[in-house]
């Protein structure tokens, strides 16, 4: 089959072409309908192989000039069909990383990832949420005889920041797809273990996906912009603690509310929430081996260093800033996206009880909060076509 490009010059030519298309039932690629064929306008027609010569003869007869746009349609189709790539065995076939996924899908994804990459990935129990759901983290570790330092990354501490769990999933996929071929990643894994918690606030995330009850159950979500966890207070009349105000780092001192109805309610006490305890207990146990603590949020485009609770700089603030600035520069190098770098208390607002502050306070030298895209145009409701560029640049 061939695709011909014709620009009819006269009305008679247009008429002849319309006649050809309808009698031979030719496949019009541009325009869509014969009645939209105009003199002076581009015409693209696909001609089935057995008719090619006849059509060309007819065009010659009527002095209609043409160019062959595509000499072999089948060849083009074959080239663009994805082949069975065995190197992608490691990643679940068909898992679309450029779409947002429900918690159920993420649970399935974790199981699948471990199954297809068992030489590198293991899934582990971390704890339970207030609504009794299981929290799992993935450990990516290359077998070796020495103990390696750890980089911990958690996503989805705030339910509405959907781009954050999307990034954790993307990150895992990228590592697994490229660790054999990318020298940077393979060197990384020789010396470091990666611990990834794709969704910290599972109950909150699920709640932000819950459909509105009655009318039009298809698209309406009850509360897409939910932030906190789902712990009940005041006899079930109020829900949710802000998990990122609940850690034991100057808990309850600044940038919080003691009122459950607030989005920044810090809970009834430090580590009052099971989700907080699950993370804190684990990190406390492993802290002597943890080199870097990363927590992923949105939005704002910031790389935030300690502290939020005070403007007093951390002991290694120069080093922290140096690394963060390098990261921001690398990030910008990809798509020009600019990230601001600095301590939360100086460039954003004061807040206590954050996981990042707590990690640094217990001795983890490198502790950062990433606030991913964007700067407010879409805010928490980032369109899924920005998942790929956001993840690529952050990677």
């Amino acid at each position, binding site marked *: 089959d061939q695709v011909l490009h014709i620009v009819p010059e006269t009305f008679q030519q247009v008429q002849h072409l319309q006649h050809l298309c309808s009698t031979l039932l030719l496949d019009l690629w541009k325009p869509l309908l014969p009645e939209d064929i105009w003199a002076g306008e581009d015409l693209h027609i696909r001609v089935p192989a057995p008719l090619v010569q006849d059509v060309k003869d007819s065009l010659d007869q009527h002095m209609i000039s043409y160019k062959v746009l595509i000499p072999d349609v089948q060849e083009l189709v074959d080239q663009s069909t994805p082949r069975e790539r065995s190197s992608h065995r490691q990643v679940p076939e068909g898992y679309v990383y450029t779409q947002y996924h429900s918690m159920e899908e993420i649970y399935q994804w974790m199981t699948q990832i471990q199954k297809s990459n068992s030489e590198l990935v293991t899934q582990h129990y971390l704890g339970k949420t207030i609504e009794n759901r299981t929290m799992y983290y993935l450990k990516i570790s290359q077998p070796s005889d020495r103990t390696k330092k750890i980089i911990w990354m958690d996503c989805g501490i705030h339910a509405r920041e959907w781009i954050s769990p999307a990034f954790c999933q993307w990150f895992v996929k990228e590592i697994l797809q490229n660790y054999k071929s990318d020298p940077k990643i393979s060197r990384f894994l020789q010396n470091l273990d990666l611990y990834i918690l794709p969704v910290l606030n599972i109950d909150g995330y699920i709640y932000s996906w819950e459909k509105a009850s009655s009318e039009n159950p298809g698209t309406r*979500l009850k509360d*897409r912009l939910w932030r906190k966890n789902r712990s009940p207070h005041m006899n079930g009349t109020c829900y949710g603690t802000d998990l990122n105000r609940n850690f034991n780092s100057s808990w309850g001192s600044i940038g919080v509310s003691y009122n459950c109805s607030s*989005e920044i309610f810090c809970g009834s006490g430090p580590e009052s929430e099971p989700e907080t305890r699950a993370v804190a207990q684990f990190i406390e146990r492993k802290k002597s081996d943890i080199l870097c603590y990363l927590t992923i949020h949105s939005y704002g485009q910031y790389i935030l260093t300690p502290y939020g609770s005070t403007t007093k700089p951390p002991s290694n603030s120069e080093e922290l800033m140096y690394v963060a600035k390098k990261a921001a520069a690398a990030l910008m190098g990809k798509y020009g996206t600019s990230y601001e770098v600095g301590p939360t208390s100086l460039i*954003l607002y004061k807040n206590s009880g954050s996981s990042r502050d707590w990690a640094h306070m217990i001795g983890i030298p490198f502790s950062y909060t990433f606030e991913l895209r964007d700067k407010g145009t879409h805010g928490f409701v980032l369109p*899924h076509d920005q998942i790929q560029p956001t993840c690529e640049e952050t990677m």
Partner: protein
Amino acid sequence: DIDDVGHKYHLELVLEDVLDKDSTVNCTAEVLYHLGNKNLPPDVQFTIEGELKNADEADNIFYNQIKSLEKELVAENIPDSHGNVPPEMEPIRLLAWVASGYVIWQNSTENTKFQLAQIKHVKQVKRSDEYLEFDYRILLHEMVSQEIIPWQMTVLWHPQHSVQVTQDSRQPKHASE
């Protein structure tokens, strides 16, 4: 610091056309936050160096599209939960963005940072004159408190006139359902 009056900020900024990222214009502004009385919106003075790009064509297309509707426009959840905005709703979203800028200005202090988070509901109101009127229920996100604040605003617009917010009111927290 201006004693007994408030805090004044001098700003130099660059305005970027949402519909054409390469089109920018420099701007200088002075913002005065009043001391004490938290109900007074900040004073804003500004100068634009050069001209804003002409949007007449896009304005007229949108205006005529709405005028030619058989029934008054009604829509919900712009963008939807996955961030999608149907192309025909894009001007409705932009109009809300502009109008919310006014509401944000009127309710800003030195300790707030507002963004339009979502349009929950928009309904066109029939008018006998040439203006278009839309009744919006929006959600504003306030960065410091992290609160999501429902707000109602009535917006008036015509291609040759600037956007007007004729009425706006903060809604109780559960009004967005």
